[in-house]
């Protein structure tokens, strides 16, 4: 199995499209950081304006943590697309290339083939999120330095002292890996159904966008189905940035998202085991 995962990772990282996600993050994160370094103080002042009427702030709030938090917030919609790009190709790519025939006539079980590909996809997702984390926090620290994290929630303005921040980011990024893995699993499922990777990519993105729109529109009918949309749980990373951290919400979301991953993967496995390879 480890050999298989190794092979899948090797194949994955020999493909150009695998790097699109990393390149996109490598380009986007510094751009956001530069933009914030220019405009950030103004924005920060604007955000805290009403509180500044009565309170005096001292400290470096425009720091790598705040910027990482903002990046996390703004890229949450975009990273799924990057994840899908590679995940949608995992199985369909072999169908397109015709390499299924070569791969599946080897003495390996289909279970192992699918599982190793899936795990390679999860590892890819993990690395992508970690890359985001490293760039956000790493370059952020170089540009802005560290400090306290100021977070504006609708219920309160929260400031976390610097020794109370990193575990929150670590948790949030791990959470992000889990929620992005749902996207991976979904794209992977679609990838098992078709013979080219465009379909899975578009379908996955369409589902995510549709779910997000439904989540965003505040209509009663939608409110009822909202708990059943996995996208409703993807934002729960921010509950680590509550004071105290809203672990109940986080765990619930982790539970729901993990269940999605398991179910989506099981369906993929079932489909793939029964699939006739005709390409």
């Amino acid at each position, binding site marked *: 199995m480890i050999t298989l995962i190794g092979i899948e990772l090797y194949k994955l990282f020999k493909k150009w499209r695998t790097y699109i996600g990393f390149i996109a993050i490598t380009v986007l994160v510094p751009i956001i950081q530069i933009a914030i370094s220019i405009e950030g103080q103004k924005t920060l002042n604007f955000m805290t304006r009403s509180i500044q009427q009565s309170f005096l*702030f001292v400290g470096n709030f425009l720091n790598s943590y705040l910027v990482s938090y903002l990046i996390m917030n703004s890229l949450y919609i975009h990273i799924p697309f990057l994840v899908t790009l590679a995940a949608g190709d995992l199985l369909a790519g072999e169908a397109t290339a015709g390499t299924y025939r070569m791969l599946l006539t080897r003495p390996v079980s289909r279970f192992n083939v699918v599982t190793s590909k899936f795990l390679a996809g999860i590892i890819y997702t993990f690395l992508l999120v970690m890359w985001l984390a490293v760039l956000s926090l790493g370059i952020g620290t170089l540009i802005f330095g560290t400090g306290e994290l100021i977070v504006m929630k*609708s219920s309160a303005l929260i400031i976390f*002292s610097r020794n*109370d921040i990193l575990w929150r980011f670590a948790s949030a990024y791990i959470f992000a890996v889990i929620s992005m893995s749902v996207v991976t699993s979904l794209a992977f499922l679609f990838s098992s159904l078709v013979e080219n990777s465009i379909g899975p990519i578009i379908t996955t993105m369409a589902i995510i966008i549709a779910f997000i729109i439904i989540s965003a529109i505040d209509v009663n009918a939608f409110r009822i189905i909202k708990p059943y949309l996995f996208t409703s749980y993807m934002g729960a990373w921010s509950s680590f940035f509550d004071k105290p951290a809203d672990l109940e919400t986080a765990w619930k979301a982790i539970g729901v998202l993990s269940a999605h991953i398991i179910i989506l993967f099981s369906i993929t496995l079932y489909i793939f085991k029964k699939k006739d390879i005709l390409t």
Partner: protein
Amino acid sequence: MKKFFILIILIPFLSFPQSKDPRIILDNVKKTFSKIKDYEVSVDIKLDVSFLKVPETHATIYYKQPDKIYIASKDFALLPKGALDFSPAGFMKGNYTALFDREEIYDGTKTVVIKTIPLGESSDIVLTTFWIDPSKNIIRKVEVSTKVNGTFTIELKYDANSGYIQLPSSLVFKFNISKLNIPKRFTNQDESEQSKNYSKKSATGTVYIVYSNYKVNRGLPDSLFNTKK
């Protein structure tokens, strides 16, 4: 400690009946404080405010007569503007009318309650009430009503053993702001509904400040206060 209690018990007896003229009382307070040309003090700030979830912070406050004040922190500090400057002059800016209200035992000490009303329309302050310990000429409590920012009270405690009786050892700032708008930025789309109705509610809060390690009259340079604000 024991000494301290004895002192507190004795204070009412030791105090001589003094003039009830509120202006004189307030001037005495100012005069007492004016011996402090400048100070530097470490502060520990603890906020108990519903809409501000902030850890306990440490900072250094620099003050210089008449009204220069500067706060610095290695990490960060957040404190109510009203709690920054406890100098009597800070509470009595501009022209005002002072009225003697009553005498009251406040926190075990006989105090004189004086109300001041600012003259003119410019001030946000509607009414300020002082609880003054006339024996030491120090303010024990201030209550301020404002037009826009609600009301707030400041309670000051002093350490009798410190060299400077006019410098408090702790301060409790309580406020009640009738309307407070927190812009909905930085917030996630899917935050629960309960938080939505928050913004327009009145907000109360308490801020605890503990002062320690006063360094008084060391001749702080003016430049210190110009660095940044």
